[in-house]
């Protein structure tokens, strides 16, 4: 039985099993018996989540205009509702469940309310309308994008029945907003009686009484923590702290961002590059995930309690591209490779004076696309990479996350007695090297390409990595970009990646409309050829025809020797669009 047959049978079985509830649904819709949704439809406030706030404001204007008579009789605050994410917003509500005041308690809360006249537009509106509009604005501002994010709804009321009812209604209201936005943020809620002490704590720290109650829960777990510092954390952080028993004081998102920026070297920039900071305090290693967007996206993991940088690329900025634009008008270099190497060596010598004179140039190659030289050299058993501007000779990038070779490779001729200071003595023994042409041949062979003339070479670079001499080879062939790493010692391919090229290197395929279909057998053969396997060697061979991004593709998968192979093949050209090889766990 094929996979497709199993799928179809499963589908048929489900269709037979699924109860038909259409009549019941239509009946609900006709008679207005739908649950909370029908209530929402009657107030016509939520036609579109993007204009939810506008609708709410219009509703406020209407209610505000008509409600003056009732309003004067209802000034007394019956309930206080607070919404906390990191924005904290407090709503004071009368017995008729209309808003008396709406205010942001912190800067982020005030920012959310800015489009609603600081909250004044919501005064006089029904509580659920206002909450809907506010939560919609919080979602739009991106505060609840993360799956682990959370919003806290607190209802403070001395009338327990009313308070608990409002709590349930508001949870349903907020859930509705989040579902419509296909948002999976958590919704926390609590009912509180009015507590003067709690309110005082809240006021002193510019947070809501609800958030103050959450902070007190953390303090109950660890009394050594500081209320003021906890008050500055988000609801998500507080929730996670409670979950893990509040072992200490997390550094907070601002500090995590600062540490990541310092490590990345972006703190010198005059523009904001931190895109997101996501706390993951309930992870086995509590941490903050900091996303920096500079020339591309960089992710950093910062330990939540120690501030240690657990992962991420250091010093992504050496000289800002804005002051040293790397893009020459033409792609021809203005300096020679030697000059580029010398520039990198000089920069390195100034930064690491203790290592001057001991380096070995591995390679200096000009990257025509980006207009810079890629300079790599070896010092003290470690490999350093620099990007040097092809025009000015400025250092554009320094990779300080350098790779070092194992000592067994390094210690060759250095005697125990007087150290020899010549460069030769600190360089490792040269391992076997098959040479660049043999490396290229190995790469072509791995790619299944017989005709080297059909290939456009991009890069063939010899470098040390993980203590081994390797060739990093890149080329285009048949509209596909290949990245292959070959061991210099024996030509073994240790890394193989392909990607459908954005450049059309094959004049025969114009990149226009799809004209043909090679068929499942040819797709299967292409995948097997690529993997260097025959059909009889593999198991679970599967070929599926699919349409993706307007193009017909074949998805071919099979297993061999503990690995799972997956291919996407262009049905029109037979080109391998994607290729993955993974452990079959």
């Amino acid at each position, binding site marked *: 039985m094929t996979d497709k047959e199993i*799928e179809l049978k*499963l589908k048929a*079985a489900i269709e037979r099993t699924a109860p038909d*509830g259409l009549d019941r649904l239509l009946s609900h*819709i006709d008679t207005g018996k739908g649950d909370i949704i029908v209530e929402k439809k009657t107030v016509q406030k939520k036609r579109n*989540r993007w204009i939810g706030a506008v609708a709410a404001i219009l509703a406020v204007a209407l209610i505000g205009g008509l409600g003056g008579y009732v309003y004067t009789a209802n000034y007394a605050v019956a309930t206080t509702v607070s919404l906390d994410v990191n924005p904290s917003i407090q709503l004071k509500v009368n017995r008729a469940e209309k808003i008396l005041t709406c205010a942001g308690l912190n800067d982020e809360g005030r920012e959310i309310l800015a489009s609603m006249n600081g909250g004044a537009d919501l005064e006089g509106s029904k509580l659920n309308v206002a909450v809907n509009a506010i939560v919609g604005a919080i979602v739009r501002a991106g505060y609840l994008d993360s799956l682990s994010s959370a919003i806290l709804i607190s209802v403070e009321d001395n009338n327990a029945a009313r308070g608990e009812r409002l709590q349930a209604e508001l949870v349903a209201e907020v859930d509705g907003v989040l579902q419509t936005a296909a948002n999976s943020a958590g919704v926390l809620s609590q009912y509180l009686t009015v507590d003067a002490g709690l309110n005082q704590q809240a006021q002193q720290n510019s947070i809501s009484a609800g958030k103050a109650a959450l902070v007190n829960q953390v303090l109950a777990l660890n009394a050594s923590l500081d209320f003021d510092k906890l008050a500055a954390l988000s609801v998500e952080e507080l929730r996670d702290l409670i979950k893990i028993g509040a072992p200490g004081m997390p550094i907070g998102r601002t500090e995590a961002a600062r540490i990541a920026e310092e490590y990345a070297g972006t703190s010198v920039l005059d523009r904001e590059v931190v895109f997101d900071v996501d706390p993951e305090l309930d992870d086995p290693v509590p941490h903050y995930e900091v996303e920096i967007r500079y020339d591309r996206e960089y992710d950093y993991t910062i330990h939540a309690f120690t501030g240690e940088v657990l992962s991420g690329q250091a010093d992504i900025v050496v000289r800002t591209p804005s002051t040293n634009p790397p893009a020459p008008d033409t792609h021809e270099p203005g300096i020679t490779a030697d000059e580029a190497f010398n520039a990198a060596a000089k920069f390195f010598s100034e930064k690491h004076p203790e290592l001057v004179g001991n380096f070995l140039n591995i390679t200096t190659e000009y990257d025509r696309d980006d207009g810079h030289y890629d300079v790599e050299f070896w010092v003290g058993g470690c490999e350093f990479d620099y990007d040097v501007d092809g025009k000015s000779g400025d250092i554009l990038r320094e990779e300080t996350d350098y790779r070092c070779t194992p000592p067994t490779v390094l210690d060759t001729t250095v005697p125990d007695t007087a150290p020899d200071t010549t460069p030769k003595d600190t360089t490792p023994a040269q391992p076997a090297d098959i040479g660049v042409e043999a490396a290229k041949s190995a790469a072509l062979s791995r790619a299944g390409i017989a005709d080297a003339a059909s290939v456009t070479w991009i890069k063939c670079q010899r470098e040390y990595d993980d203590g081994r001499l390797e060739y990093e080879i890149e080329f285009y062939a048949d509209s596909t970009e290949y990245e292959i790493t070959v061991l210099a010692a024996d030509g073994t391919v240790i890394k193989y990646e392909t990607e459908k090229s954005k450049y059309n290197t094959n004049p025969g395929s114009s990149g226009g409309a799809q004209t043909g279909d090679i068929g499942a057998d040819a797709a299967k053969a292409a995948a097997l050829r690529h993997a260097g396997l025959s059909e009889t060697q593999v198991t*679970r061979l599967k070929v599926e025809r699919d349409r993706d991004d307007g193009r017909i593709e074949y998805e071919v998968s099979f297993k061999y020797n503990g690995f*799972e192979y997956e291919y996407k093949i262009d049905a029109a050209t037979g080109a391998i669009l994607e290729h*993955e090889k993974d452990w079959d766990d």
Partner: protein
Amino acid sequence: MEDLVKDPDAGAAELERLLLNVGAGDKDSFGELYTRTHAAVYALALSILSNAHDAEEAAHDAYLRVWDYASSYRAKGSPMAWLMAVTRNLCLMELRRKKRQKELSEDEWNAIPAEARGLETEERALLQWALGSLDPASRQIVLLHAVAGLKHREIARLLGLPQNTVLSKYSRAIGKMRAGLEKGE
């Protein structure tokens, strides 16, 4: 019923049109949308809630939400993914509310085929495997692909899993179901 899996693009365009009409309050389109998608919605709800009655109620609520919120759907060419996201969120909320996720018991399971006339032995065995033997993520992945017709990358996005994981879980789950069927033959 038109097979959305066979022609996903045409199916998506039609669902998008129906959703737009539903957003404008068209009940006929709502009925048509329901007919085309309710098996998938029910299947996803069943795979999360593991209870036939709860799944039926969740599917009901999901369509009420669709009726109410169809106008907020932004056409992105993946109406089924939107519908599945609404259903999944509703089911997860239900789970949170009940704070439980019990496995489908044999008694509950037996209640399904009793109501479903014409369910063949092989189909019943498939459902048994799909819903009883697979881990929750694999269960959702299989049903989202086979019944809802979502692509693996759409499933990956919906469930917040790497695409590789989705692919390998799917492959393993199908293999497991095949083995189960062949064993039963």
